């Protein structure tokens, strides 16, 4: 079965939805946008030989934090996915991981809003 980053994200979101309910509920349009981002992540994961994909929800800021761990990143103009994913993030961070890997961290806005 082919890896789909949105499957991972969906599981994390289900858990977060339960924790944030009944005060907050996810906005379907925002989830759709995140699904599109995950499609770009899938392409990036295939192209860049990514070792791990991790999703966390920041419970205080309610942001969606996505980390990728890989050896190197190489992008040309015909591979716009990384740039597009950076552009849509609130913040982007690169750190060295275990001496010989890179950790790319993307923070995306909250998917939830207060229930009416």
């Amino acid at each position: 079965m082919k890896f789909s980053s949105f499957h991972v994200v969906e599981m994390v979101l289900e858990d977060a939805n339960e924790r944030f309910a009944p005060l907050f509920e996810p906005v379907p349009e925002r989830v759709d946008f995140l699904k599109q981002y995950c499609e770009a992540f899938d392409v990036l994961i295939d192209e860049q030989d990514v070792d791990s994909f991790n999703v966390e929800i920041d419970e205080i800021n309610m942001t969606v934090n996505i980390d990728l761990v890989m050896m190197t990143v190489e992008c040309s103009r015909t591979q716009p996915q990384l740039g597009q994913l950076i552009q849509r993030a609130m913040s982007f961070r690169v750190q060295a991981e275990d001496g010989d890997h890179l950790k790319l961290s993307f923070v995306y806005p909250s998917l939830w809003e207060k229930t009416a």
Partner: protein
Amino acid sequence: MSDKAYGRGFEDDERAEKELSDLMKKIAEAIMKDESGLSIEDPKRLAEFKTCYQILRTILRGRNIKMNAVPHDDFPSVGTISFEAKDFSVTDTDLFARACALASNYEMYPKLDGTIVFNLTFYGMTRKVDN
């Protein structure tokens, strides 16, 4: 019976090394031929190079980041912007991504000392003048 014949044996290291060396020489000759002759700076590409450098310098200012922008020593048509840092983060992600998109390609890799290298390469910095 198999149709396959004994056409090719295993290559020894010495022969493989020679073949690789010959190939590298051919590639170098092709590049040198392409780079030779009269060429002038491409103003549009040069402007993109400078813009990218200015944006990155502005975004990353005030942090412990080593940054430089140089034309390639051997190939004048290639320019490189590179920076090194322990780690870096950007909040102006739109501008950062647009700056990176100006480059022909970019790469990131970790060094053994724990720093990260980010290289942006610009091809087509010069344009050939036809005689």
